[in-house]
């Protein structure tokens, strides 16, 4: 998987490069729109990560321009502007997703995965999810651990399904709020944590090997090994 990161801030560039490399991506860097255009013309990238505030032009112009010259790879927009206007404008002009700075790396990686999945040919829809000895029947909305049925509320099932679909990967609290509850909020209380504790009590109770792990300062992960 090859990515092009168009970002002029050196600090952000360097940590993105490192983090994306560690996540298994090959990363090319461009500091301005012109370089980016040249690189995108000459190489086939799987994803472009474009910052909106570039030194030589507006990131949105760059995206429009790239679409014009036939670059169809998905574009993830990074922006320090957080208004809805900018988000809408960016997505209208050919951006595929939008992330506001500062962001959690886990969220960036999750969004990249989503974009790649969106582009990949669609497989048949799963009806069962299995992570180690945890099994979810998506049609009957039932979950079992080591064959023992778990008594989950519908909301808890959706939460567990989301964790399972991202098994082995970190999900942040704001990702959970967005995907499970459909809310883009940042509560300054531990509302998500309480849901996770309750779910953990049901999934990892009975002295079983803990599946749901908390990564403090980052989020949660459902361990798949």
């Amino acid at each position, binding site marked *: 998987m090859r990515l092009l990161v168009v970002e002029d801030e050196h600090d952000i560039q360097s940590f993105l490069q490192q983090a994306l490399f560690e996540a298994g991506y090959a990363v090319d860097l461009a500091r301005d729109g012109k370089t980016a255009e040249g690189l995108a013309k000459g190489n086939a990238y799987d994803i472009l990560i474009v910052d909106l505030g570039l030194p030589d032009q507006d990131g949105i112009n760059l995206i429009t321009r790239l679409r014009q010259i036939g670059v169809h790879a998905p574009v993830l927009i990074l922006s320090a502007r957080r208004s809805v206007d900018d988000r809408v404008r960016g997505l209208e002009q050919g951006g595929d997703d939008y992330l506001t700075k500062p962001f959690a790396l886990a969220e960036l990686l999750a969004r990249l995965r989503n974009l790649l999945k969106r582009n990949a040919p669609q497989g048949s829809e799963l009806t069962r999810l299995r992570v180690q000895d945890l099994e979810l029947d998506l049609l009957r909305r039932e979950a079992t651990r080591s064959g023992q049925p778990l008594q989950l509320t519908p909301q808890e099932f959706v939460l567990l399904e989301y964790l399972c679909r991202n098994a082995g990967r970190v999900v942040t609290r704001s990702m959970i709020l967005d995907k499970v509850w459909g809310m883009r909020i940042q*509560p300054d209380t531990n509302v998500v944590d309480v849901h996770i504790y309750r779910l953990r009590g049901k999934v990892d109770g009975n002295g079983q090997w803990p599946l749901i792990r908390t990564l403090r300062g980052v989020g949660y992960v459902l361990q798949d090994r």
Partner: protein
Amino acid sequence: MSSRTGKPALRSAAWRISLWATLAFTCGTIVVFIFLDRFVASDIQRRSDAWLSGEVGVLGDVAERTPNDALYNRVVGEVAELASREVPNRTVSREASNDSVFFIQTGSDGALKLWVGDGDGQAHLQAIQAHTFDVSRPLSIRVRGYAIPFRVATDTVNDGGRVYLGLSERDQRRVVFNLRMRFFALWLSLVLLGFAIVFFTSRRTLSHVRNIAEAASHIGESDLKMRVPTTRGNDEIAQLALTLNRMLDRIENSVHQLHTITDSLAHDLRSPLTAIRGKLETSLAVREADQAEPIVSAIEELDRLTDFLNKSLDVAEAKADALRLHRSTIDLNELLHAMIDLYEPSMNDRGIDIRLHSDGPIHIVGDEGLIHRMVANLFDNELKHLPPGCTVSVSLEQADDVVRLILRDNGTGFDPDVRAQLFTKPVKGRHSSGHGLGLAFVDAVVRAHAGAITAENNEDGGAKVVLSIPLAPRQSARAQTAHAG
């Protein structure tokens, strides 16, 4: 709100203006017409008197010069008859005999010598003898048996007798009456025309004002690009529209300025925050668990700082009525159910009970993200400040064209020290751990949705926050028809 409801024509100031204008106009024209009426009536009287005096003079001459024989009666009769036909404005009497003119000649003893006219003349003679006559001035005399008085002129004859010529005032009255009727019709149509003209011109002028007010009321709720309609010309209304639009230009300019400042401030703060957070996260991955603690808490601090930055910018923008809304139709009932599902476990963990009272779907048009954050702020507030064992009751009510979201608890209520400034600036209770922007942000979101918020303490101690937000237009219209029906 109210400008959009009711019948505009009935509530227009044009009625008041045209009623007063018509009243003034009516009084003026009444004075003019009374004056005209007096003038015309006296002129008719004068002309008729002049005719009478002339004719009686002629008849007096005839009486003096014609020999007093059988032929004389006929001559005088003919003259009187002819004279009566020359009466100005005469109507032809339906009866064969002419009752509008009479002629009397008396001898020197005052006895009736000659009578031409209707009846035997005795009643007329009696009436005449009751008055003293001046030769030069005709008099009005009432004759028994006649409803309308006669105008009588007299002249002396050289034998010591007198001749009298009487003319019924009937025709004269009819003329004056006709004239008055025409005057009245003319006056009435003038008044009505005047009323109509004043009403329609003032209505037209005021409709410009109404359009401007209507347009202005829509501006600023989030859309500053709209302008009030301008009219051609250079009158006060056009000036008003131009001034308003210039004012809106200036406001839009300052708001734009504010956006630019907040955006660049946000940008300048966010880029380093991103870099720091990214570096911390990448270094977290390679540390052992015991070394991770300071990094983790640094990341958490950074996230709090980011949240504070976002909220401050939102509150600052909202205070300047510059919050950028992304509107859609939202079912508040559904939204609250979802939010309570999210918050209930945390509240229950802290021994707090939360209940929702709602009668079903209530739609508003608003920014879903902002409403989510607003409710989250309110619930976070309860979660942070309520002691265990308390109950939060959320109710959703629809009243006329607003929806009321009422949040009540039975905790300790608002601190009297901070209550007065809950919405005006960041406030923190004595034991609060937040940054105090919560309610200021809630206020900002409510105002951006053209709503209002009040916060007070219940009589039994707990806090009560009431948010009123206008319903979605369609639902509000339905509510109104339901009220009317």
